[in-house]
């Protein structure tokens, strides 16, 4: 039972990282990215082929993979993250030229489907439909932990990575860059009129999302010790988007809560109702059903999500009663020849 909980928590932490990435492109920039899971897969594959030793295809196992550099864990994950960002830059350069949201959704969906098709069919690129597998537990050559100890260690590692991703993204969100992205989301025409290069900002936001996705994917592959095309599909993206909608668009804490709720907690709770989960049709799809249901319910009753996006607040100004809330002019007051109101408050006199 404890081992099961550790598994659920590890996958939950990785999923939360993935949802943070979706939140960048969808919550911050406001573009629907259906290729997101492709970046997760790219990160996963990249980490695998960097860490695995060279492939030895034989007549019985004809599939093989590129590279096989036998790199250690940490540089592999870092490079996999960069590869994800680079892939997102390439796709984004095509998808974000036209600024319409539906155009982006179509291009990204096509990208995801194309990548699935290519990786499934070509046996020599990334192992075809069987995928890549046989990775040794990362870092355990040095740690020498038993299966239970190692699972705790990896859970800790994933939680640490989640925290790291959260802190890094919060910092970016609050920076001028994050603010520019939100301006683009809220009104791109006005953002352009105030000096924002829409394409370049969107592209950088998109690449950041891709990098986070690839980072999570690399962690995921290192947890599963294998990766194949069946591990990623458009359904997964929908579930991640559900995490963002339920948790609260553009609120990092909110989307972590949403992800835990939709992808970990509710499916586990649903296990308590065997009638539901033992049903051969409903059972395997319970997470998708809950995710889709969550999107509908939240959009209807609380479109901002569980935790709404926080706005920058100024508390330095002292009590608001010091400043009159209504403009300090009224219909009754006389105006000067230039049309400037003659006010009575000190503020008006100071400004006039």
């Amino acid at each position, binding site marked *: 039972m404890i081992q099961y909980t550790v598994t659920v928590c590890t996958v939950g932490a990785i999923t939360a990282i993935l949802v943070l990435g979706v939140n960048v492109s969808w919550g911050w920039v406001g573009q629907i990215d259906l290729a997101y899971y492709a970046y997760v897969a790219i990160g996963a594959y990249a980490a695998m082929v960097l860490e695995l030793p060279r492939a030895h295809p034989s007549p019985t196992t004809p599939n093989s993979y590129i590279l096989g550099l036998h790199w250690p864990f940490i540089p592999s994950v870092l490079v996999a993250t960069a590869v994800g960002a680079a892939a997102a830059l390439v796709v984004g350069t095509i998808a974000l030229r036209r600024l319409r949201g539906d155009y982006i959704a179509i291009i990204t969906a096509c990208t995801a489907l194309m990548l699935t098709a290519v990786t499934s069919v070509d046996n020599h690129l990334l192992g075809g439909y069987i995928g890549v597998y046989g990775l040794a537990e990362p870092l355990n050559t040095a740690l020498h932990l038993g299966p239970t100890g190692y699972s705790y260690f990896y859970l800790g590692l994933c939680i640490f990575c989640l925290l790291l991703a959260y802190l*890094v993204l919060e*910092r*970016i969100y609050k*920076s*001028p*860059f*994050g*603010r*520019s992205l*939100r*301006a683009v989301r*809220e*009104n791109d*025409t*006005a*953002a*352009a*009129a*105030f*000096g*924002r*290069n*829409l394409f370049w*900002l969107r592209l*950088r936001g998109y690449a*950041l999302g891709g990098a986070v996705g690839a980072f999570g994917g690399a962690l995921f592959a290192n947890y599963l010790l294998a990766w194949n095309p069946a591990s990623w599909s458009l359904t997964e993206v929908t579930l991640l988007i559900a995490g963002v909608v339920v948790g609260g668009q553009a609120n990092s804490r909110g989307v972590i809560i949403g992800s835990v709720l939709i992808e970990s907690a509710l499916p586990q709770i649903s296990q308590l109702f065997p009638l539901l989960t033992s049903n051969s049709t409903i059972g395997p799809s319970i997470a998708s059903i809950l995710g889709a249901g969550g999107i509908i319910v939240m959009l209807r009753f609380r479109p901002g999500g569980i935790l709404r*996006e926080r*706005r*920058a*607040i*100024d508390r*330095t*100004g002292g009590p*608001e009663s010091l*400043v*009159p*809330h209504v*403009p*300090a*002019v*009224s*219909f009754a007051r006389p*105006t000067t020849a*230039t*049309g*400037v*109101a003659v006010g009575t408050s000190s*503020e008006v006199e100071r*400004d*006039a």
Partner: protein
Amino acid sequence: MHDGAPAPLLEVRGLRKHFGGVKAVDGCDFEVRAGEMVGLIGPNGAGKSTVVELLSGLLKPDAGTVLFDGRAIQGLPPHRIFAAGLSRCFQLAKPWPRLSVLENLLIAIPPEGKDTIWRALLTPPSRVRAAERAARDRALAIAEQYRLYPLRNDYAYTLSGGQRRLLEFARIALTRPKLALLDEPMAGVNPVLQVEIERGIRNLVEDGTTVLLIEHNLGFVERICDRVIVMVEGRVAATGSLAELRDNPIVQDAYLGVVGAA
């Protein structure tokens, strides 16, 4: 107040923009000198707003040149034109609705290349805080000047139409532009806020901004503008002070008369 004739800040030559068969702007020529406050008037459909869109880069002209501060800016993307020192407000105010008024103002402060991911990650926290405080102080000072201080923590979508206008002005004031294009700033604004907005425009001019103002309220134009440009059917029909132009038959026919050109 600005006599002598140095090179104009804005020089528009042969500007043209057709939408299918509609000749919205059709060979428009005019200039605006630094420090001037110029009104752009004309009947509905004369092409005034299209000129603003063309000048600010949101539309690309079919033909013609726009020299701004000695540089050709026609056809450049909006952010490059903004960087050159030309800001505009929108006929329909465009705040960033789900951000606070304060954030709206902070975004208006020109980023000057500081809004990058690497800067966000690598700048030491103390310097981030200092920069943020400086930006905030500047934004709040402008907020106070434009009567938005009490609203600074509200979402921009909660503002009334007139308050949104004030926010537009405050944003433009923060950009400290060389030239501000104001597209019907008085439209749909109640008389109390009209006074505020007039004051806002005067504030801009006092801060050294040249203003090109589109406005239908001729009394206001006469009060505030040094000179007006009259546009009719995509072309400049006349320029001069409004007092002179009131007697001009073209202007009377097209604009001041009962029958519009449209």
